[in-house]
Structures are given as C-alpha cells and as structure tokens.
C-alpha cells in the first residue's frame, strides 16, 4: 500500500526483473521475430526456453518469485495451435489456479501472466514485455508480506 504513495520516486531506481518461460515452437519464435524485425523493448526480461508451455510446473513460477522475480510470464502457442496437441490447455488451467493462488498470497495479479504468442507475433511479444514492465514500475518491488 505504502509503495503506491510515491511511484514516481521508485521509477528512477527500481529495475524489475521478469522471467518469461517461452515454448520453443510459438512464443520463443515470437520473441525471435521481435528481434528479426528490430522491435525495441525494455531489457528487463529473461527468457527461459521450454519445449512446451505445459512443461512449466507451477512450482517453477513460485520458485521464480521466491528467487526475486518481480514478474513471471508463461507464454505458449494460441489455443488449438499447440505443437504438442493440447499442452497449452494444461498451461491455461494451471494459469487460472496460479493466478488465484498468487493473489491469495498477496501478489498483485499484474505480476503473473499467461500469454499466447504465435511465432508470427513478434509485436505481441514486445508489447507484453513492455506492458508488464510499465505495470511493475507502478507497483514497485514485491512487499515483504507478499513474498513466499
């Protein structure tokens, strides 16, 4: 609560860290396309490549926050476009559950996102990162009670 009092001051020093788990076939390719088309976005994101977004154990997300991430993105292929038939459906289900869980744990919903990013959506990848950085700038660091 207190942190919201003065977001302007935070902005200058606060440098949020984002972990993005990207599936190899769609969202990692989307991030590649953002590069090939030279879309500029903030440097705050660190991509971890997995074969399928369905590989992302909810425990990884919790662990990432525990290790100091300010935001976590799990990105996969669009519904019905999964390279592994329906791995992303599992991601969607876990996403809903995780969002609720994190909220209960006191984390703002802006800090965790499940995104569908196709290999052709370089722009979307860049926008998702930009948006999360902007939102995190407003939120500031995770408050102590919020942490796991």
């Amino acid at each position, binding site marked *: 609560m207190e942190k919201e009092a003065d977001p302007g001051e935070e902005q200058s020093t606060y440098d949020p860290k984002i*972990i993005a788990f990207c599936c190899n076939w769609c969202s990692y390719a989307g991030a590649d396309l953002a*590069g*090939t088309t030279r879309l500029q976005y903030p440097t705050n994101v660190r991509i971890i490549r997995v*074969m399928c977004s369905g590989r992302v*154990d909810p425990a990884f997300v919790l*662990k990432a926050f525990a290790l100091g*991430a300010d935001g976590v993105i799990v990105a996969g292929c669009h519904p019905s476009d999964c390279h592994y038939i329906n791995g992303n459906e599992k991601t969607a289900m*876990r996403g809903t559950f995780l969002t609720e869980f994190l909220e209960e744990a006191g984390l703002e919903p802006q800090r965790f996102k499940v995104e569908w990013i196709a290999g052709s959506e370089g722009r979307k990848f860049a926008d998702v990162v930009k948006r999360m950085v902007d939102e995190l700038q407003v939120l500031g660091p995770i408050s102590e009670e919020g942490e796991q």
Partner: protein
Amino acid sequence: MTDEANGEKKSPRIGVFICHCGSNIGGFVDVKAVTEYAATLPDVAYATDNLYTCAEDGLNNIKESIKEHNLDRVIVSSCTPRTHAPLFQRTCEAAGLNKYMFTFVNIREHCSWVHMKDRERATQKAKDLVRMGVARARFLEPQEETKIDVTQAALVVGGGVSGMTAALSLANMGFPVHLVEKDNELGGFVRNLHGLMNTKKSAGETIEPLIDKVNAQKNITQHLNSRVATVEGFIGNYDVTIGGDDAEPKEVKVGTIIVATGAVPLVPEGLFGYKEHPNVVTATEFEELCKKKDIPKLKNVAFIQCVGSRGQKVSYCSRICCNVAIKTAINIAENRDNMLGVTEEKPAEAGGQAVEEPAADMKAEEGTERRRRRRGRGRREGEDAVEEGAAPSSGVEITVFNRDVMAYGVEHELEFNKAREKRVKFIRYVPDNLPKVTMKDGNLEVGYFHETLKMERSMPVDMVILSTPLVSQPDASTLSQLLKVPLGQDGFFQEAHVKLRPVDFATDGVFVCGTCRGPADIAEAASQAAAAASRAAIPLANGFVQAEALTSRVDETKCTGCGTCVEVCPYGALRKNEEGISEVIAAACKGCGCCGATCPEGAITMTHYTDQQLLAEAKAALEEG
C-alpha cells in the same frame, strides 16, 4: 586455463563461444566484455569470441577448443537455437562430444537486436543470459537417441475404397497387411451407390475391380465380420486382437495402423417430412431405388440441399452432397442406365429440338459430349428465357433447392453447367426460410420463398430427395479410444495438422484416410488412402524408428501410480505396468514435459529440460551479475 583435474572428481569443463555476428551483435553489445565476464563464471574452462561463429573458422575453433581445452560442454552465445542449434550440435559431435552437451544462448534476437539504443544495458543483459546458459550447462547430461525395431506389417481398419486402396498400396510394396472389415464383404458405402459422378461407370463397375485386386493380393489377410478388439503397444510394435463375430479372436503384430472406417449419411428424422410423407427419401435411399429400378413414375422431382447440415443438426458442410445432387439430377435427366424404367413410353419432346436423345445415346463419345457442353454453355447466356420450363430429355422436371452450390473444382463446375444445360433448376433458399414439404390433396408439394421474386411459391412434386451430410460412424469413439487418437468436434477422426500432416495422427504410427476423416468423394478418399499408405510405409521400410532423446523418465521408487501423467500425456506415451507404476513408452513420447509438470510426486524427470536445469537458469537470471 588448462589445469587438468587429474585423478580428482571431474567437474564440468565448459567452453563459451561468443559471437559478434559481424556487427549484428558486436554493434550493440560489448562482446569482449561479455567474453571476459564469461571466463569468470564457475566451471568455464575456456571463453572466446568469434566474428562469425557459424562460419568455417568459427566451427573449426569450436572443434579445436574442445580438444585443446578438454571441454565437455559447449555454449554458443549468438543467434537463435531455432535455426542454428543443429549446426553447432553437429560440430560438437564431430569433435566427439555428445550433442546434448551443447547449450545455446540467444544474444542476438533476444538482446542486441531488441536493445539497439542502450549498449550498456544490452551488454549487461548479454552477460546475464550467458550466466544463465552456464548455469544450465553445468547440469547437462549426454543423451542417446535409441533405435527401436519395427514389425514390418500393417493393420488397415475398414474395407471401403480407402481401406482397400491403402491395403493394396502397402501390400504391393511387399508388406503383409491385415484388413479388418466389420461387414461380411468389402466395398464400403460405394456398394449402396448407383451411377457415379464424373464417370460413365456404375458404382459396381468401379468398385469390383478393386475388390478383385484385394482378393488376389496374397500379402493381404482379410478379416471380415470383424473388429479391432484390443490394441497394445506403440509405433513399430502393436499387438492387436481382432475379434470376429463368429470366429475366435486373432492376435496379430503390426508396426503401423491405418484408420479407414468411413462415414454414414445422417438420417433426417423430423426434417422436411421425412418418414411423414411418402416419396420423401434421402439421397442414399434414392441411390438404392435407382439400383433396384424401383422409382415411381416421376414428372417432378425436388432435391433439398443441406438437410441437417451447416447449422441444423451438424455445423459443417458435407462437401460432397452438392456434387452428388448434380450427378443424380443429370442421371435422372439422362435416364442413366434406364434407371427410371420408362423408355418404353418415351415422353413427348418437351423442349423442342434442343433436347437431346434419351437413354439410347448414353454411351456418347467424349468428344460429342464436350461439344454439346460447349454448345450448351454458349446458349445459356441469352436463350434461357426462350426455353424456360423446358424439361430434360427424360421429361422429368428437376429442381434443386440449395443455399449455395458447392460444386468445387473444375470437373464439378463443368457438371454443374451440364446440369443447367439439362434444364435442372437451381433455386436458392436462406436458412431462415426453409422450403416446406407438405401434402396437399394427397399430392406432395414443396413450398418455398423465391428469393429473387420475393414471394411465396409452391410446386407439386412426385418425389423429394433430401441431401443429408455424411456423419461419423456411431462407434467411432470406440476405435478412437482403442487407438488413443482424437475425434474432432464434428466426430470425425482428427488429423495431426490440417495442412501439413493431413493423413497423420499426432500419435506416431497411426494414420487416417477417407470419409472417417471428413466428407470426401471416392477420388479424394483414394488419394488420401495412397498418401496414408506411403506415410505408414516409412517406418516399415526403415525397419526401425528413432526414439526422441528428449523424453520423460519415471522414477519408479517415487511413483505412487496415481495415473495423473497417463491422463495428461497428449500422445498416450505413458502407461501403467503390472505393478501399477507408470512407465514411459520412449518411442511414443515427444518430450513436451506436460507429465513432468503435473506429477504430484516429482517422480518424472524430463531429459535435457530437467527441473534442476530450468531452475538453475531461473536462479542465475535473478542473481546480481
């Protein structure tokens, strides 16, 4: 740098190769600084930078460094693994390093190209990414790609055009084929048909030679009156029991399976007076009447298209029914094979000299046929009005009520033109205003709203033919469950990819063709069958399948047998063994990792993407560099 850890427990020796990619990376990231930083990271035995790592110089540098510095892990920090990983993996292999001891760090697409305006932060990010790569590389393990032997025989389920075509193709390649057909004879749905479209041959004349070939092919074992009872195994090694209606179950071993179980026409219960009024029949029933020459005397006949399809009982367009209606309309107009049984009392010439000879010249030469068509086409433009109402040569007035005519492709479009030349009327209706089939004074009548005239009209008819869609076999789900392959939302078997893998299932080793995959005509079904056969022949011809090295592994000491993973796996690659413990079918596993992320006991390890590796990356990403 090359201090040998002689005799001591071996710690990893990582080599890091950082690429300038000309100025693509070097122009925006301080590559020298990143290289210096990389050299300070734990277990890094050697770090260097290259102008172009993927050029011959760069690749040779990797190979020599592996030897010179005794490297057991290699990291290339450059572009994207999606394009370049195979190249660097081969380089590692050439230097005697297992290709899974290689890791990619993407500092071009994910760094230099997207942070072109901030060299300092881009350089910092590149360092972080390299640190993540090193953290991951420390936990890498060599992996083997195993070869699994294949039983060089196939199973084909369904003995229609598709099943027979597929079975013949495989048998002609020399592979033994088990052909399972639930009926007591081969031929499938085509057996019910009369005259076929785009050919002068009857359905029987078309299908019999195919059946003869199947009968003569010694590599094909026919199982009539039979169904697949159980299926165990995976690509290359299926154990199948075939249950006969009145025979002992038979066990066969096959390497690949083709599903060709066809489809059935929808029965239009409650639609357009079906079963309510006499002489309201489905297109399929009309084919049967034609075969039996059991058609009541016709003067007026109406087709109604899209009965039950496109949003009524099923959502899709059944693709073939427009062409079937056009075919049947032409057949009636020409009184094909004297199907109407009325030549004795030849109808009075209704339309003047433009009308062609009836049945007698049915076997007209192609050339005449084409000339006639051309003549007709030219005529259509201006003279339609003159001959409005003129009946076809058989004297039967034919009207096709349609939402729009899907006569796709050149041949069908020509047939559509031919039908119009033969005075077949095509009248449109909209789904909000369906034609109504009623009885008036003991006579059948079709009422409709004329979209052009904008008025209600009606016409007396002797017969109404309802074009209903092909729908999936009622027991398709049984086979779908046995083979662990999916049905789509319309109930048809669903291929792996509509465009790129049209006859594969996502599950390796099982293929699909014909109308069980969606409505298709005979030519389409046969092409799909030939395609499926050639796909199914690949593992048979190789004699082995290469299993993915990236698979899941179950730790049987941790597994409680809850079965969650078995349910989650999209490929049916997990099963429970006799002890109720989960086991991976390596040949079927694709390495997606869904099971690993779901197992409540942490009993599943994903090779090359282990929890340890991924969490090490996350941890390194969040450390201060």
